């Protein structure tokens, strides 16, 4: 099935560039130059995913996303030049599924688009399918098969990584210190926590699109780590 991606971006060149990338990846692309046009296109077309810029004339991205969320359920990726944490949180709170800051590396954006689409339509297809285990966002840990999926893709984890992931997924949004993680996995007093840190880093490499800007495993500096829901 061919997916259609709506790009709402007032800068024509950027919009075109994203379109080229998406076309290359086999997506159909719709381009809107502001929020109002974007909403109209959403109404008239079957859109699988929207990439929305924040700062736009006529109707800005935030307004558009809020209006879109009233009647549509599609994944939305926010594109913004604002890189502050508070901007990202605002973006995610109003209903966006991901947040990419300008200037972005095109391939990262494409990867995020793919992840979102895969995840979204996988759940649509297998809505009633049940499994033993845990699910946080696009992450799935099947305790019976010991399989781990990211946005529907199977990711191979080592047994220790699996145990760490299980701890996180049992308690999403809970901050664990390196010592706590070590003691709960190794069942002994933590002497060196570096191992834990290395494992978590490797985990991030495996499950995050951009490990420098992790979506799931967040570093709480000076305290520990948490899995964000």
């Amino acid at each position: 099935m061919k997916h259609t991606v709506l790009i709402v971006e007032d800068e024509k060149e950027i919009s075109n560039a994203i379109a080229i990338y998406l076309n290359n990846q086999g997506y159909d692309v719709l381009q809107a130059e502001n929020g109002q046009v974007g909403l109209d296109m959403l109404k008239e077309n079957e859109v699988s995913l929207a990439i929305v810029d924040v700062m736009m004339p006529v109707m800005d991205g935030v307004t558009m996303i809020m209006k879109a969320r009233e009647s549509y359920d599609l994944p939305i990726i926010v594109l913004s030049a604002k890189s502050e944490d508070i901007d990202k949180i605002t973006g995610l709170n109003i209903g966006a599924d991901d947040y990419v800051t300008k200037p972005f590396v095109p391939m990262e954006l494409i990867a995020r688009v793919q992840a979102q689409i895969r995840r979204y339509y996988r759940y649509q297809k297998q809505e009633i399918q049940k499994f033993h285990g845990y699910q946080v966002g696009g992450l799935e840990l099947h305790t019976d098969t010991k399989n781990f999926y990211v946005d529907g893709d199977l990711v191979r984890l080592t047994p220790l990584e699996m145990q760490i992931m299980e701890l996180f997924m049992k308690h999403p949004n809970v901050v664990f210190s390196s010592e706590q993680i070590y003691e709960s996995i190794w069942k002994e007093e933590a002497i060196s926590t570096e191992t834990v840190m290395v494992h978590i880093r490797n985990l991030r490499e495996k499950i995050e699109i951009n490990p420098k800007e992790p979506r799931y495993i967040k570093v709480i500096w000076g305290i520990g780590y948490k899995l964000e829901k």
Partner: protein
Amino acid sequence: MRKIKIFIFSVIMICSVVYVVQLPIIADMIGKANNEATVIQVANQLVGSEYSLKEQVHPSASETPVWLEKTSDLELDDKKIAKFEKQILNEEFRRFETNSFVKVKAVDLQTNKSYTNSENFTFPNIDRMSKKDKEKYTVVKLIYNDKGELSIAGAYVNADVENHLTYTFEEERQYALSALYDEGIVQGITYDDGVYNDYEQNLIYDNYKLNPVTNLEITYVIPNDLTTQYLKGNIDIYDNEKWHEVGFFNRYDANSSLYIMAGLLVGAVVGLIMLMLPIKKVREIQPYKIITKLPIEPVLVGVCFIFFAVLGMLGEVIRSMQAGILINGFIWDGRILYFGLVFVLEATLLWLCSICAFIVKYAITNFKIYIMQQSLMTRIFKWVFTLSFSPRGSVAIISFFFVNLFIVIFGISNYGSRLGLVIVLYVIFSIAMIYVLNRASINYQKVLEQSKSVSEGNFTSEPLGDVQPFNEISKQLSTINEGFKFAVEEEVKSQKMKTELITNVSHDLKTPLTAIISYVDLLKKEPMDPTVKSYVDVLDRNSNRLKRLIEDLFEVSKADSGNVDLQLDKIDVVSLLNQTLIETKDDKNDHLDLRVTCSSEHIYAKLDANKMYRVFENLLHNIYKYALPNTRVYIDVEEKEQVQITFKNISQQELDFDANQLTNRFVQGDESRNQEGSGLGLAIVKSFVELQGGEINITADGDLFKVELSFAKF
């Protein structure tokens, strides 16, 4: 201290000069202290001697003395009186027989019979005295004619002296009468009865008269050089009391006023010199600064009082010095003491002069301040005529009204019966006025408080309401409040605008960059020949570099403009450092050996975790980029009074610049700046460290590059 020394020294110098100059004058005065005064004195002393001398050259025929005349019919023992009289006369005469330096010659004008106590001495002729004799002697000639009238001749004898002597001789005769009484004449009469009273003393005065001697010529020759002669001299003649009575000090008094004149003159000179001191110098030295703080009137009165007291003392000292030399023999032993005293007094005088001079000086240089503020009169005047609204001002208000009341009562006292009514009305009026003014005083305090609170930066105080008569001031003050509030709000707004500007500029830079990066990336995917590809690679590298640069610039601008929300928490620095080390592992050069030492497992400080991560990240990136391969890098975290974090590495390049300059924007270790990196790394580190209340110190010791961070412990 130094200026005081200079001052005392200069005063002493001036005194010494004056003193040395006047010494010969004093010495001269002492030497010459024997002219008219001596004549009068000696002659005066010799009153009474004339009777003895007369007896010597012309002995009385009868037992009854010829010059003692009975004036009443009272029965007295004449014989007894005569006997005592003779006895006394002989004692008087004996003075001349002993060692007296006064040479005397008496000639009876009737018999031409003469007497002298110095047989070998040639008495100079008074009319034709040689110059030598004049220098050596003072000669007085007393001549009693046949009627007993006295005429005087001799050196230093003028009309004044003659009058004086004539008058004194009359007096002295009466005195001689009482001497007769004292020495036993009357006692002789009354002793038998054992009665001694005023009545009997008065008997002599009332019943006897002492007639002058007749037909006698007496020549006294007194050596001028009394000072030396005195030592061998006769105390009786030079009796201290007598010197005073005779008026020796008339001469001194003239000298004394001369001295006062001289003193004033010297004082004026000193004062003039002090006045001629440049004002600049005076301001620099500020001598007698204390007098500028005292009211001018008491200072002037005090100075004048001391001045004349000292002048008087000086006169007294000089007088007793002269007298002492002549009378008490303090020539050599006492002179130094006296001269010392004179010196001290004169120094005091000059010192007072200099004070006066400086009062004038201060008054001239700062007339307005000195007169308006230092003068007691001005102060009193101001106090009476100024209504103060200070808390103590009510005292002034009340006293003002009392003064007024007094004036009014004084003024209306002629109105008799209506006086009471007027006073009652005035008291009512006064009470009302005191009430009004007191209220004004209280309101003044309120307004003062308000203005104080404004001056302390409190711009939110409410207007005061009714504070007559200061309503307008209070209103203006609250307007100032609003003005300030407005200004502060403007400032806050401009801060906000600054932040928005940074955000907008950053956005405007990022948008075209996004396009560049995207299209460069697309371009890379197109088939092209190697030359073009190498060009595209340059574009790719530099657009990515530009991206980092903009991000860093944005960050450092925000930190510097102070628009950063800090989220300070209790952060474990060790754990944060370890996390950062893990997270930046990929960037690490494999040839670097990192040695991390922590003084304890957990070290806590109050920090913003995200900012601190950026600090560590930037410092580590710096080390990875600039450290010499195959060297060790030391990272120490220590907990002392503060949490101290030290990064030490060996630099790849020579550190030939000021290490602290590195925290300036866009300064990089390599001058060519062709490496990747924005040059903002250390600037961000510095901004963030300081934002979190820490300190950063960067040192380069040879090739050792050291960054020290310190934060307060949690």
